[in-house]
């Protein structure tokens, strides 16, 4: 039965859902005019409601119980991941305004879709039933398909949306078939039910788990099913790419972690180890060859999926802590890097120039034309490369530490070697920015104050968690 406690404890979810609808109403009331009243209201409303939602999430860090007839589960894990995602969305909202205005796509629907996607992501992580996993995943994915194709006049955006949509829907079919088979074997879809079935090897059940794993491997962009990531990430609007590659992946990994702990997939540990290594290898090696910075970061995000996957080889408390720490730092640095790319893109005036501004060539001499932007991007790239004192270093450190504790030392050795390859292409971008003369054409000062603020917030987060990781670990250690 649904009672009052269900609603009181899920206020963040309700705020997000209500805001997404409210934005649509405001968009309908205020027409697009010169005064832009509606746009301003929507922008500030989004920020306020996200801050309120984060504020209401903090007291729930100690809650650990089931809600809505045991369809949702609030635990320290889900609340920490939810706060991370809400923070990521807040940074995305801040960074979107100027980019959207420049592209001429500043419609309220963008913010509404962003909130609906957030709702789906939060449901995915909180899910305690395969129905909710499916519904949350689809709410997230369908919003992402629209957001990826939001620049509907641009062919790249259309193409990325179509590719994402066809492949995403295809793998939804696999997810559903997996759920159907598990349901057929166990007679239930609730997570509380599956603890009785740990380590079953009945073919129906086993095939069901494998099919669900395939769908998750697709959503997280890990090795055999990573081919969509570069295309989709390059074509989508830059702010959307930043959000999908950081917050979207966090949700997928969060749901995957709950799935792993529920079903006890120890027998897959060798497979996951090999997949993680292949993912890191593919991402890092192919990224070396890229000439487009969005595509380079897309391949680097594949490599990062590999690092996170290491934490799934054996799901123990220490590896869970490592994964959550990595996800928090990954959201900050990946999102931040894409925000800077978005700012650089928004400086160009014509559509062709904006496409061109994503090439690595146009980053030559950015340190001279815009030192502030270049130094912030350098911090994000250093953090992505895993260089101390930024949070990215501690993320990698805890991941490799946890896998060594689980006696998979060879995975840690291979992973560290592969992350050294990764350093090369991050440093290449930094060299381009600081040690080359600017290409012709003076870049005028941008007026992206909000986006710059968002990037600075991410930088502060990276510094804070990098110098003083206990600040974050204090919350993370409460998981389990």
């Amino acid at each position: 039965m649904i009672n009052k406690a269900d609603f009181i404890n899920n206020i963040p979810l309700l705020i997000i859902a209500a805001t997404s609808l409210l934005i649509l109403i405001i968009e309908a009331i205020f027409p697009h005019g010169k005064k832009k009243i509606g746009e301003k209201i929507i922008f500030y409303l989004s920020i306020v409601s996200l801050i309120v939602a984060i504020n209401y999430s903090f007291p729930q860090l100690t809650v650990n119980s089931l809600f809505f007839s045991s369809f949702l589960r609030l635990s320290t894990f889900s609340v920490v991941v939810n706060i991370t995602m809400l923070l990521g969305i807040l940074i995305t909202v801040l960074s979107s305004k100027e980019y959207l205005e420049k592209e001429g796509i500043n419609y309220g629907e963008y913010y509404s879709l962003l909130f609906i996607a957030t709702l789906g992501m939060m449901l995915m992580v909180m899910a305690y039933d395969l129905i909710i996993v499916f519904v949350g995943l689809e709410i997230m994915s369908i919003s992402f398909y629209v957001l990826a194709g939001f620049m509907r006049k641009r062919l790249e955006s259309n193409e990325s949306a179509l590719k994402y949509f066809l492949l995403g829907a295809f793998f939804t079919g696999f997810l559903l078939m997996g759920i159907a088979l598990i349901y057929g074997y166990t007679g239930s879809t609730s997570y509380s039910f599956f603890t009785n079935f740990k380590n079953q090897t009945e073919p129906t059940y086993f095939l069901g788990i494998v099919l669900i794993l395939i769908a998750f491997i697709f959503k997280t962009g890990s090795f055999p099913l990573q081919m969509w990531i570069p295309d989709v990430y390059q074509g989508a609007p830059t702010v959307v790419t930043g959000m999908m590659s950081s917050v979207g992946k966090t949700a997928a990994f969060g749901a995957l972690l709950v799935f792993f702990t529920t079903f006890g997939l120890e027998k897959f540990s060798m497979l996951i180890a090999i997949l993680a290594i292949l993912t890191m290898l593919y991402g890092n090696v192919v990224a070396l060859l890229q000439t487009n910075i969005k595509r380079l970061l897309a391949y680097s995000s594949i490599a990062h999926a590999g690092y996170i996957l290491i934490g799934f080889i054996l799901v123990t408390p220490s590896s869970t802590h490592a994964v959550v720490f990595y996800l928090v730092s990954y959201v900050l640095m990946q999102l931040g890097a894409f925000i800077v790319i978005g700012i650089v893109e928004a400086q160009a005036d014509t559509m062709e120039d904006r496409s061109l501004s994503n090439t690595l060539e146009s980053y030559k001499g950015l340190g001279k034309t815009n030192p502030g932007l270049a130094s912030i991007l350098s911090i994000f790239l250093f953090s992505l490369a895993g260089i101390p004192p930024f949070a990215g270093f501690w993320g990698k450190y805890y991941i490799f530490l946890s896998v060594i504790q689980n006696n998979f030392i060879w995975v840690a050795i291979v992973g560290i070697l592969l992350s050294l390859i990764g350093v090369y292409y991050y440093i290449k971008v930094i060299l381009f920015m600081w040690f080359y003369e600017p290409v012709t054409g003076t870049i005028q000062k941008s007026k992206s104050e909000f986006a710059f603020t968002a990037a600075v917030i991410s930088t502060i987060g990276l510094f804070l968690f990098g110098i003083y990781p206990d600040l974050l670990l204090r919350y993370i250690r409460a998981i389990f």
Partner: protein
Amino acid sequence: MGINYFLILALLLFSIGVAGVLLRRNAIIVFMCIELMLNSVNLVFVSFSSYLGNSIGQIFVFFIMTVAAAEAAVGLAIIIALFRNKETINIDEINILKW
């Protein structure tokens, strides 16, 4: 009738859907094949639900139908947006994003 007939039919439909997605090049037909996959899953759910005598499977089918409808709306809109910019929906010719 045993449940096996239904499951074999559903798996056949699923395989036809997968084969269609992998082999056909027209975006609309690929999308129809995906719908076929989802419908075969519906069949699996309904037959298991009847076999096990509990209603969770039938409830799940409603969720799948709702989501499939939303997906159809979004997917067809994306295909139309693409067709307006580039007069084709052949997925082999949609190839400006690569390396």
